[in-house]
C-alpha cells in the first residue's frame, strides 16, 4: 500500500489559486519594509550617538593657553618704542586654559538613552531571527500567517487589542475630536463634520495604533544636536570704524543643541520651550605689514615669505589694552605671546599704540537660549512636517576673545559692553518621523537671528545669526 501511495502522490500536482501569488508578494513587501525601518531606526540612533559623542568631545577639547605676557606695567620701551617681552623666547605655554565657555551639551544622558533604546527594541517588530519572517494578521480574520516564530504567541496576545482598532475606533476617535474642536470654536460647524467623514481612512493596524498614540500624546520632550553656520550682521560708527580690526572669516561652523519641551494645544498647534546652547562670534583678520625684507626682494634678492601681521590700533589704560573690533571693544588683560606693541605715530593720543602679531583675533560668545515657539503641523502623515517660529531669550553666558597665532589659540580677554539678555527670532521647518508609539526622530532646519544688537556700545550694532539643522529624538507622553 505504501508503494502505491508513494507512486501516485510523489509527482502529484495541483494548481494553487491565483490570489496566492499576490499574498506572497504582499508578505515579502511588508517584510522588506519592516527590515528597512529597523535599519533606519538603528542608523538614526547610531548617528545621534555619534553626534552626541562628537559634541561632548568638541566641547571638552582643550585648546586654550592661559599664558600671556602678564602685567603690562613696568615694561621697558626699546629703541624703536617697542615693548620688549622678556618671555618672548619661552615658546608656547604648557598650561591649557579651559575657560572658553563651559560645554553645555554633556554626553547623552544614559538613562534617557536606555529608555529610548529600550523603547525601540521592545517594539518586537523583528520577526523570527532565523528566517526574518514577521507574523502578520489578515484583516477580518483571526488567521495568522506565521512562520512559527515566537512572535506568533505575542501576536495572539495582542489580537484582542488590535481587534478593538476596527473601523469603529477611528470614527469614534474622530467624532470625539470633532466635538472637542466644536467646543473650542464655540459652535457646531458642519464644515468640521465634512472634514471628518463617517468612514475613516483605513490605515494598517500597527500604523493606526502608532498614529493614534502619537496624536493622543500631549507632551513631547526632545533632545537635539545642531551643526550650525554662525555669522553676523554689523555696522559701526565712523569714529569707531576708523580704528577697527579688519574682517576676516565672516562665518564659522559650530555645534549647538539642547532639550525642548512641547505641549500640544490643538490638533495642529503646539507650543515649545526648553533650553538651547549656541555659539556665535566673529574673526578679525590680518593686514600685511611692510618689512625691510621686501626691499631686498626689489633689489633682486629672494622672494619674501613674510607672514601677514595683525596690525591694529590699541589703547593702553593702566594694565589693560583696548582694541576696537567688529563685535565691540576687546578688553585685553594680557599681551598675547609673540605680539608686539608699537607706538602709533598717526594718532596723537598718548595712550594709543599698535598691536602687531601674526595671529588672528576672534570674539566668541556662548548663548543659552530659552525659546518660546509655536509649531503648526502642516502635514500630518507618516512623516510630519511642521512650521515653527518664535522668539528666544538669549543669555550671553560666555564672552571670550582669543588670538590664534604661532603659539596656538589663547584667550586674551573679553568683549566689553555685551548685553547679558538679548532677543532673537527663529523660523524653521520640522520633519518628524515616528519610530514607534512614543519615539520619533526629527530633522529641523532653522534660522535664528538676533533682533537686537548684543553690544551696548552705541557705536556698534552687532547682530549674530545662525543657520543650523537640528537633529534629535522626541519622546511623546
Amino acid at each position, binding site marked *: 500500500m505504501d508503494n502505491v501511495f508513494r507512486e*501516485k*502522490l510523489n509527482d*502529484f500536482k495541483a*494548481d494553487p489559486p491565483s490570489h496566492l501569488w499576490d499574498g506572497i508578494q504582499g508578505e*515579502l513587501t511588508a517584510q522588506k519594509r519592516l527590515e528597512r525601518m529597523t535599519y533606519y531606526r538603528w542608523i538614526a540612533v547610531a548617528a545621534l550617538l555619534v553626534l552626541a559623542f562628537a559634541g561632548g568631545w568638541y566641547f571638552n577639547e582643550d585648546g586654550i593657553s592661559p599664558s600671556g605676557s602678564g602685567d603690562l606695567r613696568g615694561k621697558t620701551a626699546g629703541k624703536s618704542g617697542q615693548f620688549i617681552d622678556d618671555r618672548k623666547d619661552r615658546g608656547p605655554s604648557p598650561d591649557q586654559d579651559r575657560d572658553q565657555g563651559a560645554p553645555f551639551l554633556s554626553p547623552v544622558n544614559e538613562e534617557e538613552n536606555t529608555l529610548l533604546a529600550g523603547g525601540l527594541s521592545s517594539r518586537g517588530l523583528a520577526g523570527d531571527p532565523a*528566517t526574518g*519572517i514577521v507574523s502578520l494578521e489578515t484583516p477580518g480574520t483571526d488567521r495568522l500567517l506565521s*512562520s512559527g516564530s515566537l512572535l506568533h504567541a505575542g501576536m495572539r496576545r495582542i489580537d484582542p487589542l488590535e481587534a478593538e482598532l476596527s473601523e469603529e475606533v477611528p470614527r469614534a476617535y474622530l467624532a470625539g475630536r470633532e466635538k472637542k474642536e466644536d467646543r473650542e470654536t464655540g459652535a457646531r460647524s458642519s464644515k468640521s463634520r465634512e472634514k471628518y467623514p463617517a468612514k475613516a481612512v483605513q490605515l494598517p493596524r500597527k500604523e493606526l495604533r502608532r498614529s493614534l498614540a502619537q496624536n493622543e500624546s500631549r507632551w513631547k520632550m526632545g533632545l537635539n544636536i545642531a551643526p550650525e553656520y554662525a555669522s553676523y550682521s554689523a555696522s559701526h560708527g565712523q569714529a569707531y570704524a576708523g580704528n577697527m580690526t579688519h574682517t576676516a572669516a565672516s562665518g564659522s561652523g559650530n555645534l549647538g543643541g539642547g532639550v525642548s519641551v512641547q505641549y500640544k494645544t490643538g490638533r495642529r498647534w503646539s507650543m515649545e520651550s526648553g533650553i538651547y546652547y549656541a555659539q556665535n562670534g566673529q574673526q578679525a583678520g590680518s593686514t600685511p605689514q611692510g618689512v625691510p625684507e621686501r626691499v631686498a626682494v626689489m633689489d633682486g634678492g629672494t622672494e619674501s615669505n613674510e607672514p601677514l601681521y595683525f596690525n591694529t590700533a590699541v589703547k593702553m589704560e593702566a594694565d589693560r589694552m583696548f582694541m576696537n573690533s567688529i563685535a565691540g571693544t576687546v578688553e585685553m588683560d594680557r599681551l598675547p605671546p609673540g605680539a608686539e606693541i608699537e607706538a602709533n605715530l598717526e594718532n596723537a593720543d598718548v595712550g594709543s599704540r599698535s598691536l602687531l602679531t601674526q595671529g588672528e583675533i576672534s570674539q566668541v560668545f556662548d548663548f543659552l537660549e530659552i525659546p518660546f515657539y509655536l509649531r503648526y503641523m502642516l502635514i500630518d502623515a507618516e512623516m510630519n512636517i511642521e512650521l515653527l517660529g518664535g522668539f528666544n531669550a538669549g543669555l550671553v553666558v560666555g564672552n571670550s576673545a582669543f588670538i590664534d597665532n604661532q603659539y596656538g589659540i589663547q584667550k586674551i580677554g573679553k568683549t566689553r559692553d555685551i548685553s547679558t539678555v538679548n532677543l532673537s527670532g527663529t523660523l524653521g521647518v520640522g520633519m518628524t518621523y515616528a519610530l514607534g508609539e512614543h519615539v520619533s526622530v526629527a530633522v529641523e532646519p532653522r534660522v535664528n537671528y538676533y533682533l537686537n544688537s548684543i553690544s551696548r556700545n552705541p557705536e556698534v550694532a552687532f547682530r549674530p545669526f545662525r543657520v543650523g539643522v537640528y537633529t534629535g529624538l522626541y519622546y511623546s507622553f
Partner: protein
Amino acid sequence: MGDHLQLVLEDLKNIIKDCASGKVRAQEKIYQMFAPKMFGVCLRYSRDRTEAEDNLQDGFVKVFTNIGKYRHEGSFEGWIRRIMVNVALEKYRKQYQLFPVEDIGKYEEQTFSDGILEKITAEELIELISELPPRYRMVFNLYVMEGMSHQEIGKEMKISVGSSKSNLARARGILKKRIRELYGDIGKNANYPA
C-alpha cells in the same frame, strides 16, 4: 540530452541568483515552476484546501526569504519541499501537539488487493489522507512520502519511536477501512511491512 540538462541547470542557477537579489520576475518563475507540485505536498499535510493554501503561501515566503542561503547542494526541488514540510510541521506543533490523540479504537487488520488502489485517483488518495487525524496524517506523510525513519519522526514531532510506529499503524488502518468503505471488495490477504 546531457547538454540540455546542463543548460536547464544553468538557467535554474541564474534564476535562483536573481531571486536572491529580490527580482520579482525570477521569483515568479520559481513559483510557476514549483508551486503546483508543492501544493500537492501541502494538500497531503493539511486537513483541507484552505490550510494547504496557507502552508503554501508561508512556505514560498520562506523560500524567497532564505533563497540566498541555498548552497546548490542537492536538488533545489528537494530543498523547497523540505521547507514546505517544515512549515506543516511547525503548524502541527503549534496547533495539535498538546491535544490528546483521539482514541479511534482498534482496527481490524484489513487487506485488499492492490488492484483497488490502482483504480483510486491521486485526488482521492489526498482526500483520504486529509481525513486522518492530524498526528496520524503527519506520521504517515513523513514515513511513507518523505522516507523518514521512526527515530527522525520522533525527533521532529517530539514523540517516542513506539508512538511513531503505532501512529503509522493506525493511520494505515484508517486508510484501509476508508478505502474498503468507499471502494468495497476485500481481496486476498496481502502481507506488507509494518
